[in-house]
């Protein structure tokens, strides 16, 4: 029984203990938790090495939000959604603009964004032609201002997600059609939890995003009206077939 239970715990990154006696948390678990919390807290305050990213992703146009420090960024999300006054963005009217945003986990951007972009460029022509922006102290909605200034039909923001305990470097991707400041979050499609510790892999995330980019162009919109019906992760058992047929 014990061996069965410990094998089962490998099926999830969640902190399961499978304790049939329901005993209090062992000290070892408590200290592990505190170690992870400390690491997540530290990840928020790391800096993106943009030079290193540029070496893998290619040329970047740098922009900043109006938040001047991490502390200000945390307390004032409104500043993180607004472009700095000195921002200069070339209007090349691309079908797609890509924004790399540090968000709440700079390490997530550094690790996952190059993989997502490489996979996406393989699958999607618009992604190959997309200008790429590097945004510091940035929230998701900063992409609206960037996309509008670039004259982009849609904008894809890759952003470091708020660090969790298990994973402090998870990437989120937000696709917004006709971006402009003031766009509501319900008008975006999101693919989240992109990381290499049991999350969505960069390749699968790119497949979903590629599907969404094509679907958004066809529908002329993103958001709750655009249902993500890209093929489900093939490792899942698939009553999905039933849905397609009904």
């Amino acid at each position, binding site marked *: *029984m014990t061996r*069965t239970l410990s094998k089962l715990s490998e099926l999830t*990154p*969640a902190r*399961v203990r499978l304790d049939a006696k*329901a005993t209090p948390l062992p000290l070892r678990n408590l200290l592990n938790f505190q170690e992870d919390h400390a690491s997540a807290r530290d990840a928020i305050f790391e800096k993106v090495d943009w030079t290193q990213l540029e070496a893998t992703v290619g040329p970047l146009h740098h922009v900043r939000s109006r938040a001047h420090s991490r502390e200000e960024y945390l307390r004032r999300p409104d500043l993180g959604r607004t472009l700095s006054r000195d921002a200069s963005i070339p209007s090349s009217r691309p079908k797609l603009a890509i924004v790399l945003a540090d968000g709440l986990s700079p390490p997530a951007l550094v690790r996952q964004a190059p993989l997502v972009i490489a996979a996406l460029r393989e699958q999607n022509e618009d992604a190959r032609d997309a200008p790429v922006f590097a945004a510091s102290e940035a929230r998701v909605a900063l992409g609206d201002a960037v996309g509008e200034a670039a004259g982009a039909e849609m904008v894809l923001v890759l952003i470091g997600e*708020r*660090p969790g305990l298990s994973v402090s470097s998870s990437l989120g991707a937000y696709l917004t059609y006709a971006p402009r400041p003031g766009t509501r979050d319900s008008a975006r499609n999101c693919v989240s939890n992109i*990381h290499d510790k049991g999350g969505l892999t960069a390749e699968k995330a790119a497949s979903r995003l590629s599907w969404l980019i094509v679907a958004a162009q066809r529908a002329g919109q993103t958001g709750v009206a655009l249902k993500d019906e890209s093929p489900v992760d093939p490792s899942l058992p698939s009553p999905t077939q039933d849905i397609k047929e009904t």
Partner: protein
Amino acid sequence: MATYSGTVRGERFTFNSLARLLAAATPEKSGDQLAGVAASSARERVAARRALADLPLRTFLSESVVPYEIDAVTRLIIDSHDEAAFTPFSSMCVGDLRDWLLGDMADTMSLQQAAAGFIPEMVAAVSKLMRNQDLIRVARKCEVVTAFRNTLGGRGTLSTRLQPNHPADDPRGIAVAILDGLLFGAGDAVIGINPATDNLGNCYDLLCTLDDIRARLQMPGQTCVLTHVTNAMELLKRAAPVDLIFQSVAGTQGANEGFGVTLDILQEAWEAGLSAQRGTIGNNLMYFETGQGAALSADAHHGVDQQTLEARAYAVARAYDPLLVNTVVGFIGPEYLYDGRQIIRAGLEDHFCGKLLGLPMGVDVCYTNHVQADQDDMDVLATLLASAGVNFLITVPGADDAMLGYQSLGFEDLAYLREITGSRAAPEFEAWLEAAHAGGGLLEGPGGILENMGLVA
């Protein structure tokens, strides 16, 4: 527009609208400072409370903090107000209501009768005149019972949502997390998954997984995949096993539009859920989540403080006779609730306001990694809420949600709370757990849980 004023140490402070008065009277929150509506000094805050104490409750029926003409939530609040239930309070000021609530006249029955007579702005206002202990003391007197496949909220019960999230929505990983919680007796309120993606096929698979586990274990409880309400309706059309219909809601029309919902859509979803007739002993089937700061986050706050807007979200929830409502109090981040102290205060306010308005109120006692809080703060809030008689709390394996990336309570915390308060699970669920243990334990009894969940052959 009316103006209000209060005097502190000989200095007179003036507030040029009801919204300004409420915002100035509210306990300090970073979100109200972000919105630019907070009191600019501690003395101004007390002056506002003095003015608020003398404000007739009737004022809230004639002057709305968000105009009736432009906001569907205000129209819902005013149009559905029960004047008869309000009659005993019709000549009271906010301060009188505070005294009445703390007195013996306010008991379980009189509070239940009063609920429909209160509107959110009244209960938000009175909460601003109350200390933490007052919020606990009054909420404890309220009892809100709801039912679907079990009975939740009865006095002496403390229920839990078991939240078995998985970063890739893997059904076996989810089943293991469910097992982890069931061993601690969690999950009577709902076994509810936040899906990693809103992909319809994915949600369909998760619903089937949950329903299969529930049916195999013959568990008297309900399941939910927390996807957008329009997805739930679509899934119901495709005959998916949807027990509860979930939606995040907020206190203004604009903020709800930010969530992609209107009152009409919620009504349609509720009716669709009712027509599925899946409840066995009750028909409460809506599940709502809320949280202070949602309206500001959607830029739809109309200059109203976040706690008052949160209470308005409860008016939306109560229109659909929900099974469960919970505030996700520490999820939103430091720009709205800066630290453990603000999260604790907000959790108690939300629970109090929800209960006073007649809601089956639960709380996700939680924090994120970018806020100044840790497990010690959560221990304090969870202990206070258990004392206050909260209907249910959220629990996840090891207090760590591996998908959403934030920390809630762990299953061990539930064991702690039941030990110190003597509270128990929903009666049907508790009987089921006891039968399982009498039969040799959840794991080893006849047709042990592992086989029943399909985890081992």
